[in-house]
């Protein structure tokens, strides 16, 4: 009977739960779902990681290719992140070109990578104006159950930490490229961004790390990204208005997540060695 009730009147179903200060999946408002991070399991990619946030699953694979830097910035490489929300991960999505949602999230992730400065593009330059690395960072959502950006950012950091780039010898005079596979170096990762999604329910209740159902029913979403003690993204695209205190409260809550994520990453990478 509960199933039908949920299907026919989902908002009321949720309100009933939330009025008892609990969410249908048993969490209280502020708790996050368990996080699993697995790194380096795809060896066709130059760096890879799989993250699970409750049911939400995202796999991130990084492929490095060689290219010519832009004339305007001859000493910079490229980072090309894209999030794919394939029809595999949820019945909401149809085959075909990326949906608006996928595009918006791709850009948000791109902004986060840029703002957090976790990758220094000059590290990717091999020879100014001639040769640079282009990192294709592809995120594929395997299970779409809310807070996808959070899962992407975890997977991103995990994947970046496993990237190993081969040494490249470039002979400018002959325009000759020689790649040495035996000799690799890890990519310097300058910061660890940690993202937290919040959902505003009924204009007042703030739920951390929402599931997809909560995201569908809520009246607003906030994404906060921190790197160390600094903020690098406070993204609230419309939705229920909040007072500045409430917003700062969210920032405070997401701060608590930073050391946890850092430890998780450390443990995950230890095993890889």
């Amino acid at each position, binding site marked *: 009977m509960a199933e039908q009730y949920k299907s026919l009147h989902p908002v009321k179903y949720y309100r009933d739960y939330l009025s008892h200060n609990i969410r249908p999946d048993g969490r209280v408002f502020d708790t996050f779902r368990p996080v699993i991070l697995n790194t*380096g*399991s795809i*060896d066709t990619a130059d760096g890879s990681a799989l993250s699970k946030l409750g049911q939400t699953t995202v796999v991130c694979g990084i492929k490095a290719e060689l290219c010519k830097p832009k*004339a*305007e910035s001859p000493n910079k490489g490229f980072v090309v992140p894209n999030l794919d929300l394939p029809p595999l991960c949820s019945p909401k999505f149809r085959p075909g070109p990326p949906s608006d949602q996928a595009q918006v999230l791709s850009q948000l992730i791109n902004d986060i990578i840029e703002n957090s400065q976790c990758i220094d593009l000059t590290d990717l330059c091999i020879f100014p*104006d001639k040769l640079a690395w282009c990192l294709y960072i592809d995120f594929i959502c395997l299970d779409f159950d809310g807070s996808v950006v959070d899962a992407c950012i975890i997977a991103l950091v995990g994947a970046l930490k496993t990237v190993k780039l081969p040494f490249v010898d470039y002979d400018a005079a002959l325009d000759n490229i020689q790649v040495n*596979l035996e000799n690799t170096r890890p990519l310097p990762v300058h910061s660890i961004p940690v993202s937290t999604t919040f959902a505003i329910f009924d204009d007042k209740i703030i739920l951390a790390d929402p599931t997809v159902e909560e995201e569908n029913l809520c009246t607003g979403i906030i994404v906060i990204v921190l790197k160390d003690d600094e903020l690098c993204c406070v993204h609230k695209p419309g939705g229920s208005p909040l007072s500045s205190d409430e917003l700062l409260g969210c920032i405070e809550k997401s701060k608590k997540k930073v050391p946890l994520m850092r430890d998780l990453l450390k443990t995950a990478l230890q095993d890889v060695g």
Partner: protein
Amino acid sequence: MSNIRKTIVSNCEKTFLLKNLAEFNRLDGRAFDEFRKVEIEFGSDWGCCFVSLGKTKVIAQVSCEIQQPKSSRPGEGILNLNVELNPIAAPHFEADRQSNEQVQLNRLLEKCLKDSKAIDLESLCIKNNEKVWAIRVDINVLNHEGNILDCASIAALAALAHFRRPDVTCDGEEFVIHSIKQKDPIPMVIHHYPVCITYSVFNSGLYILADPTLLEENVADAFLSIGLNAYKELCGLHLGGKADLSPEIIIQTANKAAARASSVVQQIKDAIEQNNEIRREQKDGFCRLANKRDPVELVEELSVYLDQWSTKKKKNKRKSKEPKDEQIEQEVKEPDITADIKPLVAGTAVLVPKENDDGDAIKVWDTSESEDDAVEFVELPHPKVETVDIADTDSEEEAVIVLNADQKTKKRKKRLT
């Protein structure tokens, strides 16, 4: 799907318009060969201009980047034109979707500006076969009140004339792009200034209206668009629709368009001149538009137009108030266009039945498409050089690379995790 939110022209609007035309009146009070007022404003960026033709409004922006030249034209820069029919201009336009209308507009503009060799592409070459400037003109239509083509062509030309690209110097091997602050940017080299002049054709050329409004465009049988520069050289001529026009009419109309073209070109040149002077003092660009109140802009009511209409009529002649069959002939000689046309079509045009179905704009466009073959080309003043499609050669090169890639990766050693 494209019919969603489409405004339909009602039969009574149509008949009203045609009846008025029979009395040689246009609904906005203009004479048949009168154009709407052109206004040109420039933004603070180089190559950005906002043009209004009456209430039709368009914004054009020129941008440039360095690219590899096409292998068939190693010593020439690249010029791309792109017209966008945004939903802001009319609710039935769809974003991110190429409509037939859009493709046609783009092609007509290309014919006028690109194929006529108005822009000196050779001056855009930086290093033969390696680096050239690719110039892109984006024309966003903001308000569709008829005759987008003319408005867009004026905007594109004005923007190109206004545009300046950053200077590039070469010290042996390295190319340095100087920012606008470091070195004065360089204006484009323009050989001649071609613009499009469009006419709507009613009743097989019985009435030919210059610069049609939206309603006139939708009701018209056909449209005749003439690309011309100030030297009366033809740069593309297109007749779309289903009117059987005699060649003489086309030539006569083209002659009249030539006068218009030179005045428009002069206006563009004046506007650029004026802008260059303003730029020295202030760089506000479009902000000037914000406080500008054009009295004509606010004229909305039909009654106001009708006032204008009657004053125009007074100027013409009192006689027109008693429309009699014989009198029309006399009256006809008053405005010079109709006088031109009349003797040619007399006899044939009178009984042509007008289309009474709801053939709206789309229909007009569609038919014009299907009749593309029948489009008459008048020889261009400049020899037309055949553009060789280099796509084939390009893709071959690519294919080679890919093949290599496959074979080499085969020999790649397997990497360990």
